[in-house]
């Protein structure tokens, strides 16, 4: 378990940022990941007093505060209306409701975990990360950046007309995913995100006209990624699963279009 000497509930982002510049400090969001870390720090900087725990919907985008919980994401009516079933599907297997009442969107995205359902899902959408000092950058760019001591303030998901679906495979219902896939589509493009390979999610952008046959197109998409082996499954198995799930998601999207 993480231990620390001082607990500070930040009163402003500036205060949180300044405190976090010291290596002996750590940002505390849902604390679910930090809790299972064996770390000793001087100061825990709590972001829970900064009003970052809501989801705001405008004409152009959804603005999700870093401290919004996974449960809020799961049951938010506006998100579910625009992306039917998507956020429910990518959150529902994460441990249990009590866990999702704690774990945050900010912690999930900032952590860029190799097993993350949330990162896999959001990467297939037109998603941006708002950093306190680093400004607003595409999620894909954020994923390739090194960890630094900035603060993730909000996630912005554009309403660009994409439809999206999510699927994951797990050894047991609430285990980490063995493979996680999200596919979104515009008129001529598929955005395919595959995570838990077991490495952090990456994106493949594929023209829908590249192949006639969905199975071939899915195999092509699955080929974009590198897969690894761990005790949950081999690289070969993961690649096979990715091709199967991506194909199914293509088919769901095609069916939805009629």
């Amino acid at each position: 378990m993480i231990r620390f000497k001082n607990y500070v509930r930040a009163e402003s982002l500036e205060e949180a940022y300044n405190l976090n510049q010291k290596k002996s400090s750590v940002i505390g969001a849902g604390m679910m990941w930090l809790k299972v870390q064996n770390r000793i720090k001087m100061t825990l900087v709590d972001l829970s007093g900064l009003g970052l725990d809501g989801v705001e919907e405008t004409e152009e985008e959804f603005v999700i505060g870093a401290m919004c919980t996974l449960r809020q994401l799961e049951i938010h009516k506006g998100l579910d209306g625009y992306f039917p079933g998507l956020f429910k599907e990518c959150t529902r297997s994460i441990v249990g409701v009590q866990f999702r009442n704690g774990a945050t969107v900010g912690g999930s995205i900032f952590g860029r975990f190799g097993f993350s359902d949330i990162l896999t899902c959001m990467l297939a959408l037109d998603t941006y990360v708002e950093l306190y000092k680093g400004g607003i950058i595409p999620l894909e760019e954020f994923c390739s950046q090194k960890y630094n001591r900035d603060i993730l303030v909000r996630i912005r998901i554009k309403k660009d007309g994409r439809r999206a679906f999510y699927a994951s495979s797990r050894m047991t219902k609430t285990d980490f995913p063995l493979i996680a896939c999200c596919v979104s589509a515009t008129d001529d493009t598929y955005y395919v995100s595959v995570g838990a390979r077991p490495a952090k999610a990456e994106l493949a952008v594929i023209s829908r006209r590249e192949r006639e046959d969905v199975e071939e197109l899915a195999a092509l998409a699955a080929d974009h990624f590198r897969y690894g082996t761990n005790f949950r499954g081999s690289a070969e198995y993961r690649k096979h699963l990715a091709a199967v799930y991506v194909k199914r998601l293509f088919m769901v999207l095609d069916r939805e279009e009629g």
Partner: protein
Amino acid sequence: MQIEFTLNGRLIYEETSDDETLFHLLRRKGCYSVKCGCETENCGLCTVLVNGVSRLSCSYLAARADGCDVVTLEGAQKEAEEFGSFLAAEGAEQCGFCSPGLIMNVLAMEKELDSYEEENVKEYLAGNLCRCSGYMGQLRAVKSYLSRGENRNEC
């Protein structure tokens, strides 16, 4: 540091270390229904309600409870007894170790869900592990508890 919160309806002023968890504080205050089964956020044994929301006290900082309303099984005796009778009727308990956490989450579920369809119920309770019951007895007990005396949605 000093915090002030409501525990089972009573206002409490308490000294806590900055990194103490709510679980440890609650045990110190004599709430022995709250147990720690895994300490890795997986078993649900340590579930309590914070401002009406089910939370894992093993990973909830006591410092964050400042100004909150915390309820443990000790503060929900009436509901616990009622639900307990459904568990007993279904033979859904063996050692009973998981029951306090399960009961607290069932109480949260009852308030939160609009529809008690079986899938919703199972998903809501997926974070409450039980090594004895095999879950089917628990599920039957939860279903009959939720539909007691009324014609609620399918369950």
